[in-house]
């Protein structure tokens, strides 16, 4: 009969209309600035640099190996290696980034930099309300802006952070057990178990 399907459709929309007043299922809007959905732990947005200790610049884990710079698909990372060295968390003498810039307007949040980093120095942040009025300088983040403490990392990705800490502690213990600090030439031979880490 002509009109039957139309009536069925009308019944369906009516059900949704009245349902929207009684059931959360049928009123799915989250009114954003007031209501916020919890972010899943895996949520990622833009990278940041992890530092240990209190000094946000001296405690950076980054040793300026420039792997992330090379691997970054949109090439949004810019690193300048320092000329001098300073001890890292194990105590080895390492370079550090004199300049570490990320252009977040170019960054595509792919997390490749995190995966390739042998030092767990760069991690993904989940902050997303980052708008600025200056789209060039305002979105080019320097080392100072990128540095965030390990506690923050624990805060946003507790499971991953714990894993990373464990691994770093293990590496440190191994290094201490192996020998007294002789300035190691290379630390790039980190175990490959990191590949599955996020």
């Amino acid at each position, binding site marked *: 009969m*002509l009109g039957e399907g139309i009536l069925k459709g009308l019944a369906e929309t009516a059900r949704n209309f009245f349902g929207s007043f009684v059931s959360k299922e049928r009123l799915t809007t989250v009114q954003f600035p007031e209501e916020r959905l919890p972010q899943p732990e895996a949520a990622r947005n833009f990278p940041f640099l992890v530092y240990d200790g209190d000094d946000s610049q001296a405690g950076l884990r980054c040793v300026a190996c420039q792997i992330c710079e090379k691997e970054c698909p949109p090439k949004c990372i810019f690193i300048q290696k320092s000329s001098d060295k300073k001890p890292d968390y194990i105590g080895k003498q390492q370079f550090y980034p004199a300049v570490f810039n990320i252009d977040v307007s170019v960054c595509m949040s792919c997390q490749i930099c995190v995966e390739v980093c042998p030092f767990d120095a760069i991690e993904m942040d989940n902050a997303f309300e980052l708008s600025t009025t200056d789209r060039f300088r305002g979105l080019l983040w320097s080392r100072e802006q990128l540095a965030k403490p390990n506690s923050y990392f624990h805060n946003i990705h507790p499971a991953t952070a714990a894993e990373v800490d464990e691994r770093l502690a293990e590496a440190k213990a191994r290094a201490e057990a192996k020998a007294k600090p002789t300035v190691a030439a290379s630390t790039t031979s980190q175990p490959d178990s990191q590949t*599955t880490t996020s």
Partner: protein
Amino acid sequence: MTTAPVKEATHDERAAGCGQDELLEIALGPHHPSTHGVFRMDVVLDGERVVKLKPVFGYLHRNHEKIAESASYLASMPYTDRLDYICSLTNNWAYALAVEKLAGLQVPERAEYIRVITAELTRLVNHTATIGFLTQEMGASGTPLMYAFREREKILDLFESLTGSRMMCNYMRFGGCRVELPAGWLEQTKKVVEEFPRFLDEYEQLLTGNEIFMARAQGVGILKKDLAIDAGVTGPMLRASGVNYDIRKVDKYGIYDRFDFKIPLGEHGDVYDRYMVRMLEMRESLKILHQALRDLPQGPLMDPKAKIRGFRPKPGEAYGRIEAPKGELGFYLISDGSPNPYRYRVRPPSLINLTVLEDMCRGYSIADTIVIFGTVDIVLGEVDR
């Protein structure tokens, strides 16, 4: 029909038309609400009937393939997300499959299962979006689209908690998957899969029997079987024309031979069949999901041979293809032993399915053109690359 303010049609166009009527040439797009982004159709109309249609694309060309040839294998993975941005996980899979063939990597069983689960969820995401937009193009004021997106959101939430991103998942790696399932993910997925048929029923109630929908969809934009095969059309579009061709069955890539599912086939090859084939395919996907979620084994996620840094496959070539929601998605790679592929080529289903657009639209009205175009189901990111 044409009028004083309209530019006169050129001689050729007039010759192409029927009768003595003059033709109206309009550009649908690139700024048009129904062109799925920045697509343009140069349409020659006789009244409202399409006489000629020339698809114009390239507005979204991003040089994906050339960039991939100068980047490492891994660095192209997030770019594949952005090909067909509705279904990034199947893109990941197709690319990973090609690289795995090239490098001879073995994917552990658990990772294969997770790939199947995510791919079928992606199929649901894609088909809900497609039919939602299709009804929008038929002029429904957003209601079916909103219902479709309501369900799609639930799956995107799953993606986010698994991969960290709703659309740009970047989840699969050469030789496995990137991260283990988060706690509770499996249960949540089971719940979503359990509830999904309710949405499909609702949708069928709302649209499938609707006379206006039937009038707009049946007998419109017929794609003949032979033409579909000749043009290399794949995916739901091909199956709606009645060709039994699904790479999940043909290639049995991954572990698809372990699942019990069927391939819905259309008969007329019109808009309605393309819509229904997608609806039925979603139900089949749910069957696969049920089985995969039930059988998901424990085990490692990555092939231990796989390397993230310093990945250099030995020289050779490989073509990996999967049944993406839109059709056959293939990646062709040549390695010269360096960290970058020597040649990188995508076989995008969207672009190749689009080639029959003019044949489908000729003779139908401009309103049909929009609907037919909607059932081709393209994403400009994949067409233009």
